[in-house]
């Protein structure tokens, strides 16, 4: 770890905190994904609270306060708590959320009792155990980093080695069982991964904020990909980014590390939820607006063509009256058409340019083709389960099938 710390252009303590935050981000990102995707992220909340009694018991049993002893205690308590959640859920009466809540409060109460019990011994050595509640990044030591880094590497290697069975179990436990995978073992492995992520992170950000670290990278990454392998990589990267940016901001502002990291994470997650291409809230709203506008423009184009057949070139006002659209929509559509070069203007009146006439014809052909598809489409022998797109029927059906459709229609009309 020495060379890494020397490599960073930060003071010694700041570098330790920075590296700790990065390791935490990667671990929480990759390992947390297996809880978040199973919709069990709040198990992480319960388990991070449950590490407290484990740490106390480890301290009572060994009297040692080094990172690895306490980590073992925390991990053991986390596993016990996870098992208890599963057992309680098996009653069928208590639902998962209540099981998580009960285990959370039970273990945390036990932890508080043990903490005060320890404090009564006036054992000054116990001071610092309660940093497990709120986390204290500044208290990280170089040896903590080594433990965290090793745990992180081992568990990442485990994920890489068991990727396929884990993926199967993650998305379809019943199927995994039916093809002979050890489902109990895989479920245990996923829980153990969650515990490891928590043990790595809880010292830095604290029990209450830990759940955000588990959730943020996965939901950020999920907005950009639908493949698990890519998601895990992205999630690890986002986790590292959140951790490092948070650590840097808290360093420069002299703010507590845990809360700053969580706030940075919130910004990451919300940005992804709002702006992610193809999925984000703003992106979808924009697409709906563009689609609506295009539909209105096409409608006005056809109205204009109809009006031109009926008589003299109309003014926008006349067009609005004839088509029954609001004048504003018509004007905006005309501006769009003008920009596309489909319009000629004669004072107030508008008529179609050559390009505009061509555009109307393709549009009308497309509509006719869609009508034919609705009428005769069922007779076509399509080799797969394609669902044609009304706007791009020829492209989705392919030239062969479209020609068949046209031939069928003309035959039918000739027959009648």
């Amino acid at each position: 770890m020495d060379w890494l710390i020397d490599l960073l252009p930060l003071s010694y303590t700041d570098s330790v905190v920075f590296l700790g935050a990065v390791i935490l981000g990667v671990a929480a990102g990759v390992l947390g994904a297996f809880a978040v995707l199973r919709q069990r992220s709040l198990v992480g909340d319960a388990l991070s609270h449950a590490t407290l009694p484990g740490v106390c018991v480890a301290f009572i049993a060994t009297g040692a306060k080094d990172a690895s002893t306490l980590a073992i205690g925390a991990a053991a308590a986390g596993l016990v708590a996870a098992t208890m959640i599963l057992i309680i859920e098996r009653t069928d009466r208590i639902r998962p959320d209540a099981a998580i809540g009960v285990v959370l409060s039970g273990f945390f109460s036990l932890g508080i009792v043990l903490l005060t019990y320890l404090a009564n011994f006036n054992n000054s050595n116990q001071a610092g155990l309660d940093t497990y509640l709120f986390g204290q990044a500044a208290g990280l030591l170089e040896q903590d980093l080594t433990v965290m880094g090793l745990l992180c590497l081992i568990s990442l290697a485990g994920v890489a080695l068991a990727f396929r069975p884990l993926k199967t179990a993650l998305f379809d436990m019943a199927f995994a069982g039916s093809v002979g995978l050890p489902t109990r073992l895989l479920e245990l492995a996923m829980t153990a991964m969650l515990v490891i992520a928590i043990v790595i992170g809880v010292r830095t950000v604290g029990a209450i904020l830990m759940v955000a670290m588990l959730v943020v990278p996965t939901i950020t990454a999920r907005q950009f990909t639908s493949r698990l392998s890519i998601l895990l990589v992205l999630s690890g990267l986002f986790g590292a980014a959140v951790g490092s940016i948070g650590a840097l901001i808290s360093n420069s502002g002299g703010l507590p590390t845990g809360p700053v990291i969580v706030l940075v994470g919130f910004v990451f997650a919300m940005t992804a939820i709002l702006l992610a291409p193809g999925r984000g809230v703003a992106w979808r709203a924009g697409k709906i607006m563009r689609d609506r506008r295009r539909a209105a423009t096409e409608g006005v184009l056809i109205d204009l063509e109809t009006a031109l057949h009926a008589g003299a070139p109309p003014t926008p006002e006349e067009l609005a009256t004839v088509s029954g659209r609001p004048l504003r929509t018509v004007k905006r559509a005309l501006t769009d058409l003008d920009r596309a070069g489909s319009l000629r203007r004669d004072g107030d009146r508008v008529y179609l340019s050559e390009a505009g006439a061509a555009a109307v014809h393709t549009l009308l052909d497309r509509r006719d083709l869609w009508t034919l598809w609705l009428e005769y489409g069922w007779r076509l022998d399509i080799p797969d389960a394609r669902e044609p797109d009304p706007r791009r029927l020829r492209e989705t059906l392919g030239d062969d099938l479209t020609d068949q459709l046209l031939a069928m229609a003309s035959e039918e009309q000739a027959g009648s």
Partner: protein
Amino acid sequence: MSDDLAIILTAGLLGTAAGLLGPFLVLRRQVLLSDAVSHAVLPGIVIVFLLFGSRAPVPVIIGAAVFAVICVLGIEAIRNTGLVHSDAAIGLVFPTLFALGVLGVTEFAEGVHLDLDSTIYGEIAFTPFRTWEVFGVEVVRSLPLLGAVTALNVLLLALFWKEIKVTTFDPSFARVNGISPVVISRCILVAVAITAVTAFESVGAILVVTMLIVPAATSYLLTVRLLPMVLVSVGIGWISAMGGYSFAISMDASIGGSMGMVAAACFVLALLFAPRYGFVTRALVRARRRSAARKPAEAGT
């Protein structure tokens, strides 16, 4: 009033106030939302403290209630995008609000009367020392406060019992009959937030969350009807208060933590021995049925 009595009464009142609401959280699967809400009120407390420079109960409760509503609305807004599951939405929103609160405390209020320990992990052992003068009589402050909250919760349940019941068990039927499940659900969560924040300064967050969740879950294992479930839940709250206090005195440990442990112990007992749903009871019933099934078969051979 002796200190012992004050502490037990405070915890018992909390057990009553929380025990009245808890069953509905369990039945509506909103247990973790209550946990989230009780953490998310922290920035409300901090902002009120920064604005008014006081921790007077009424503004603090209002500030906290505002943030409870923000938390619930935020979680719903994120879930309604359809991009994030509700558990992840909870896990995203409440730590963020809590982080804001922690930042506020450490930046602006450190060293003043508002530190994390007293806001979130308020120690019930100190309640007897915080007193109010009422008509010349010295009263432990937490008692009238928690008493008022308990009365509020009783009133809420008494006035809207039918509405709360129907929206809990059959929201679509309720909506058809003109009772909005959303409004009722918000009311319950605001009541949870008010209970939580009132209790915070006297007993601490862990005990509040525990008292909301554990007695109700225990009671759910023991009962099948709603009214008994609520009453048993309140009863378990009182048992935890008294049992926890004597345990804490004998072990010289945290009183709030001990009360939580007693509540958890009640849950474990119910999990094992509840007449209908307990593991041991069900195993016994199964064994008896099996032997009963075997006997006529043996008699036949």
